[in-house]
């Protein structure tokens, strides 16, 4: 594993030396209304109805073929919910969701332009802190996994001394971490890109659930996310290219 350069912005004292990369193609939307969690729960893979203020959860909106529409992180802000997703998928996500609101109390505001998103990686988040976030002034830092945190700041108030996104990709390859626009795309279902932990097996129905439940119960999912040798792997299977090692979604 390559040694990552020491760097970066200091949002909070304990993360001062951790690498952070800007997410230039992230989206941020604000969802308001008493039916928001129930609504998102009915259309996505993870169980989100029990989310409380100060907590975050990741979930995936899927289509009827169980292909990913977008993978989002929900921040429960008390009065409302903020979702961080992938900007190129936002239009499709809004089209998918807005026509299903019907008479439910849900309204959505696009606040992408007011904010900047960053990913802090190679960190060691305590397991008890995963799924929580904290805010200091204009900056919110949420622990989305054991080794990644999502940082949202108001425009112009984000961390400085950022890593090149390629360093993040290199780290992802070494740690087999799927990412938006690379592995997490409309071409794959959640299992294929290594997002099994975001598919709740006991929750109720949602679009794509029958297909995912069948794959899970039969233990067959077709393709899986793998770390491959760049030179020997079929180029069309590679999703994140590295010099010697790459990530690929290949048949198992």
């Amino acid at each position: 594993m390559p040694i990552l350069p020491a760097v970066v912005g200091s949002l909070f004292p304990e993360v001062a030396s951790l690498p952070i990369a800007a997410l230039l193609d992230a989206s941020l939307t604000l969802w308001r209304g008493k039916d928001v969690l129930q609504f998102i729960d009915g259309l996505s893979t993870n169980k989100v109805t029990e989310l409380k203020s100060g907590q975050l959860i990741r979930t995936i909106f899927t289509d009827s073929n169980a292909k990913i529409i977008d993978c989002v992180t929900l921040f429960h802000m008390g009065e409302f919910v903020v979702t961080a997703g992938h900007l190129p998928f936002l239009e499709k996500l809004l089209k998918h969701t807005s026509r299903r609101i019907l008479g439910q109390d849900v309204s959505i505001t696009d606040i992408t332009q007011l904010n900047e998103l960053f990913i802090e990686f190679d960190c060691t988040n305590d397991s008890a802190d995963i799924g929580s976030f904290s805010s200091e002034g204009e900056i919110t830092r949420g622990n989305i996994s054991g080794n990644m945190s999502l940082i949202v700041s108001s425009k112009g108030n984000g961390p400085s001394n950022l890593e090149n996104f390629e360093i993040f990709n290199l780290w992802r390859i070494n740690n087999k971490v799927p990412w938006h626009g690379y592995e997490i795309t409309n071409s794959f279902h959640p299992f294929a890109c290594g997002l099994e932990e975001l598919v709740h097996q006991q929750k109720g129905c949602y679009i794509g659930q029958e297909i995912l439940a069948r794959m899970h119960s039969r233990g067959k999912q077709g393709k899986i996310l793998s770390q491959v040798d760049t030179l020997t792997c079929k180029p069309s299977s590679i999703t994140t290219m590295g010099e010697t090692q790459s990530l690929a979604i290949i048949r198992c």
Partner: protein
Amino acid sequence: MDCGTCDSADPVQMVKPEVIDVNLTISEMAKNMLADAFGDDRSHALLVGVLSGGCSGYMYDLQIVESTDQDCQELSVDGFRVLVPKASSHLLDGIEIDYVEKLMGGGFKINNPNADSSCGCGESFS
């Protein structure tokens, strides 16, 4: 995080489907079951709505209610008060409310000409 709570960000324009004058029918079997459920008190109404969710994206919502805060069309069908939320009228025009007697999966069923597909249990459609 700047949440734009001072209205500095515009709300996303929602798709608002056209409100349609709903026609619906109730099968003989369903009428009998509804008559049993309502008894002599016809002050209550049958609310026929649609929620998001389910395997196919939309789920039927059937309730007996005194009133609702949803903006509804009120119909009189075979002596029953039926409320249909205007927001889901485009999905419910032409439906038949049926009742199926089966040990498993029985109960009220909606036959919906607007549905392209529905899930096996019949509770959701797209």
